[in-house]
């Protein structure tokens, strides 16, 4: 079933120029992900996991190769078209949460709707309920624990109802209890049919997924 492929990476390559030296952070990475699949990207530090996730999230453009999301190629898209992809197709959870310190939990959560101009008050409340932070809605990020911040970040990634959720080491900064809570949240989201890709060093999280992509030196290990 070709139309059940949500994300298709074909020979994705990313070369960084560090001074005179070229760094091949990603080198010809090819894979397809099914709609609704829960996938982990693993590999040693410097293997290119974050780079891959950024490409998948349309945060950056590949040096060569092609990425298709929901059948649509992202090659040669303008900045505004890429912005629209980020806004509508993907939800991104940063390793360092990426919450704005001056905004409350609720404001951070609805931040993306400010740019998409979609009214999402009800859905925001629902998401907040879902991540168990309703009582924290008017708190500032610095009043929250790491686990709570991560949950806000995940909720924010979901506010525009994306096709795919991308998370970079979502449990990296958390203790095991909080990590477990995040894992449960991902399980729930997965059961609801969301496509999830997580970059992780955490074996528990990696083993909980359906599929693992192993990166080594920018290449996919079969």
């Amino acid at each position, binding site marked *: 079933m070709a139309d059940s492929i949500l994300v298709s990476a074909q020979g994705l390559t990313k070369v960084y120029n560090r001074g005179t030296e070229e760094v091949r952070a990603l080198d010809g990475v090819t894979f397809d992900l099914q709609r609704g699949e829960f996938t982990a990207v693993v590999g040693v530090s410097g293997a290119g996991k974050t780079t891959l996730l*950024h490409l998948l*999230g349309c*945060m*950056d453009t590949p040096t060569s190769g092609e990425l298709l999301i929901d059948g649509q190629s992202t090659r040669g898209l303008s*900045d*505004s078209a890429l*912005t*629209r992809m*980020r*806004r*509508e197709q993907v939800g*991104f959870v*940063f390793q360092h949460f*990426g*919450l*704005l310190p*001056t*905004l409350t939990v609720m*404001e951070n959560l609805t*931040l*993306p709707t*400010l*740019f*998409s101009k979609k009214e999402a008050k009800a859905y925001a409340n629902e998401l907040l309920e879902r991540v168990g932070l309703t009582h924290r809605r008017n708190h500032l990020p610095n009043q929250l624990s790491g686990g709570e911040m991560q949950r806000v970040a995940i909720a*924010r*990634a979901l506010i*525009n109802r994306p096709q795919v959720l991308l998370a970079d080491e979502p449990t990296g900064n958390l203790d095991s209890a909080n990590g477990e809570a995040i894992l449960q949240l991902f399980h729930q989201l997965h059961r609801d049919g969301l496509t999830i890709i997580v970059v992780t060093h955490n074996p528990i999280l990696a083993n909980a997924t359906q599929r693992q992509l192993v990166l080594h030196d920018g290449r996919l290990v079969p």
Partner: protein
Amino acid sequence: MLILALKNLTRRRLRTALTLFGIAISVGVLACLLAFGKGYEAGLGRELNNMGIQMMLVPLGCPYDAAARVLKGKTLDVSLPAESVKTVRREVGVEIAAPMLMATLPRPSEGRTDLWVGVEESIRPLKPWWKMKEGSRWFPDENSVILGAEAANVELRQVGDTFFSPETGRKFTVCGVLERSGTSDDSQFFVPLATAQAMFRQPDRITAVAIRLKDPTLIGDVSKRLQEVRGAQVVTMAEMMGTFLNLIGSVRTLVLAIAIVALCISGLSVFNTMLSAVLERTRELGVLRAVGASRSQVFSLLTVEAVLLTTLGSAIGVILALLFGHFVELIVRFFVQIAPSEAFLILSREVIQDCFMVGIVVGLGAGLYPAWQASRLQPVDAIRAD
């Protein structure tokens, strides 16, 4: 968006406050300046019209200086022959011609100098603001004096008092005291013209002739004909005002230049504030881009921030001007001789609007480049920047 911008401004309170302060000061100066210009012109014009004097015949010399001195109650070194009044009166367009002789009387024992003005009854319609205190009369005899309110105060004299003037060897009876008018008349001593001429040994001389025309529109013709009077020249009030406003105008240009420099400097400080905000918040701006903010949205966010900053500054500036404008007016009054007697520093709605416009323009000007810088950030550059 607005709330986001506002919250960002509250982050670096001190820096924001300093920037605001700079804008507030320069906008405040600008507000006073604009208000001053408009109010002053209007006020002076109204006053000169109220005066009922349309022109003055003064001795040859620097005409405007002469007229200004006469108006402000200072003496001239030169004088006109008394016949010139008759010449003026013969001119058909003239309704009233009032001769005046002004002389200073140094009073070393009192440590001041009094100004004596010889006038005839003809001056009264030309000084419509004169109001006499209870019991006052127009000069009943040649040794009568009418005191300005201030002069009466200083001399501790009332209507009916008699005093001796040792400097001139004359004895005077106070026949009248003027109510305070806020003009230079307040501090003067008015005596009959003939008395003044005798007192100061200036027989048949006068300092100036104040003139009112039957028809003010004929001012050009009349002044041309009167220009022929020997040793004299005509200064119309319109000319006076024009010259004076020119002078005020150049002072204003100077202050305006200062205000513009101040605005430029505060513009630079907005620029600096915004640019460092962009640098500091690179990561957050990247987050905004990552969650779906377009370039133009990031651009407008930063622009809104800058404009908000300057608009807020302008508001404070206008408030400062409202609060302290009165002091500025006092200072101007202190330095400028001819000032309208009513308040002239009026912050009209237009002036306030202009100030806000300037604030917004400065905000836009200073905010555009930092905003453009911010909008060029790529989400991934921003995320990695730490």
